[in-house]
């Protein structure tokens, strides 16, 4: 019964945690897993994963979020219901943590619970090398170590999600790949995925001659309003 698999997503604001969290949860549900998504963001007032509650619930995913998320007030709350992810009733739990060390603070509260399920836990540091706060190794190291300290959790995976929103390109992703592989060597954390739009990933594969660390994982973008293209 109690063999829930867990994916925790942390990183800098704008690293793309929320897009990845939505993709992880929807892919999990599509594979028939009983899936739950926790919006653990205590920082961001807008553009949070629970804003896609309807889409997720239609896919059979349970959404746990502060009852004030996406409302008119800004309260840094964690839903008490988050504890349900440790009861064994789900096959797959995705935890979308707020950005930066300050966002990771909310995760620290679950240190004991997470310690008990460590063998089924993936902790993913999402890296977008186009963000000024994670643009080189010293900056990433600082960000990652502070997130580990505040979140009271060690990272066991890196995800290269380098993008420039609608200006994303394979070259841009490759810049991020060089950085994520450097971080991987220096901090001894393996690269798990390279994420992005399917067409960009395909061109990235050609560009690199398939010489890269990590697995290509196409994701669908759902958070960005279409009118931003104008």
């Amino acid at each position, binding site marked *: 019964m109690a063999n829930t698999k867990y994916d925790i997503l942390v990183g800098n604001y*704008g690293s793309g945690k929320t897009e990845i969290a939505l993709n992880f949860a929807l892919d999990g549900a599509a594979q028939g897993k009983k899936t739950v998504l926790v919006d653990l963001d205590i920082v*961001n*007032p*807008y553009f949070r994963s629970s804003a896609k509650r309807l889409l997720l619930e239609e896919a059979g995913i349970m959404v746990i979020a502060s009852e004030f998320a996406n409302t008119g007030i*800004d309260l840094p709350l964690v839903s008490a219901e988050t504890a349900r992810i440790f009861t064994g009733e789900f096959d797959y739990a995705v935890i979308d943590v707020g950005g930066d060390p300050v966002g990771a603070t909310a995760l620290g509260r679950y240190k004991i619970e997470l310690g008990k399920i460590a063998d089924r836990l993936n902790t993913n540091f999402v890296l977008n090398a186009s963000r*000024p706060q994670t643009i080189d190794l010293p900056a990433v190291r600082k960000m990652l170590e502070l997130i580990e300290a505040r979140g009271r959790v060690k990272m066991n995976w890196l995800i290269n999600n380098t993008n420039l*929103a609608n*200006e994303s390109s394979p070259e841009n992703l490759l810049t991020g790949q060089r950085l994520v592989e450097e971080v991987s060597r220096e901090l001894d954390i393996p690269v798990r995925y390279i994420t992005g739009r399917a067409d960009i990933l395909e061109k990235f594969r050609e560009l690199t001659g398939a010489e890269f660390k990590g697995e290509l994982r196409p994701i669908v973008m759902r958070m960005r309003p279409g009118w*931003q293209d104008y």
Partner: protein
Amino acid sequence: MARVLMKGNEAIAEAAIAAGCRFFFGYPITPQSEVPEYFSIRMPEVGGTFVQAESEVAAVNMLYGAAGTGVRAMTSSSSPGFSLKQEGISYIACAEIPAVVVNIMRGGPGLGSIQASQADYFQATKGGGHGDYRLLVYAPASIQEACDLMATAFDRSQKYRCVSMILGDGMLGQMMEPVEIKPVEVKQYDNSWATVGWADKSRPRAVVNSLYITHEELGAVNKRLQAKYKEIAANEVMVEEFNMDQPEFVIVAFGTVARIAKNAVAKLKEQGINVGLIRPITVWPFPYCSLEKAAAMNSVKGFLTVEVSAGQLVEDVRLGVNGKKPVELHNTLGSVYPTPDEIVESILALKGRK
């Protein structure tokens, strides 16, 4: 600097630093809190000063004091917090101190909501505080434009010794876009008015003041201010006219809402309906002349103002159109943003009308 992905609030702060701003005084309020947060990290790195004040009122008066010495300084807030700053802004305007203020609008009135809104249009463009003064108000529609306008806002505030404002909404503050923070050539203007000490007595004593005891003095100050605003209105209007070649209808919208409206223009084009868009970039001074010109076009049957407020922008549109063509309002309340399809529907309804 290469193109990076930044949140609107962060980019606004970084662009201010690029424009020479070295003093920031503020107080947190959603959805602009990343502005002070970002300055708190960056100001020490560039030799600047960040102060989290005890209140918005304190912050704006710190701005008054710092800017009175001629340095580039700013404050930022969001709607309710911005209301608190109005008295100080009026003082700064009267004392003719160059300063930059940022309002990242949220829902109102009252505490309203943390969600985005455009309902501070009147406050920004028609005074806000007491007395006859104006702000030079820029309303960017993208994060890149916000950064570029930040440089303009600082420059013009120094040039005219006036208060410049960046008027964004929570959407602009919170969203992320690729942006390039361009280097700014910081132009130096005469600042013999600044209170930087009087040790050598080589110039008249500089005094920062907004109190005038005689009718004559206050009258003279007001005349000088009005002449300045007239000059600003003549020289500083910025507007985007989009798809204005013989349009059947013209949409008027500012900020992020204008971008939503642009999607509607594209969708209408697919249906064979030619609709133009007038986007005021400065909302004061308002581009009345663009409206006047459009109203005189034979092809134009009417105007549609799109705004996330109860009918504020539409008043300026009516002033510009001056009764020559019908002006309709498509607005939303409660921090609900219109969709391109809803705007398309409104234009189709106008078209279907006799």
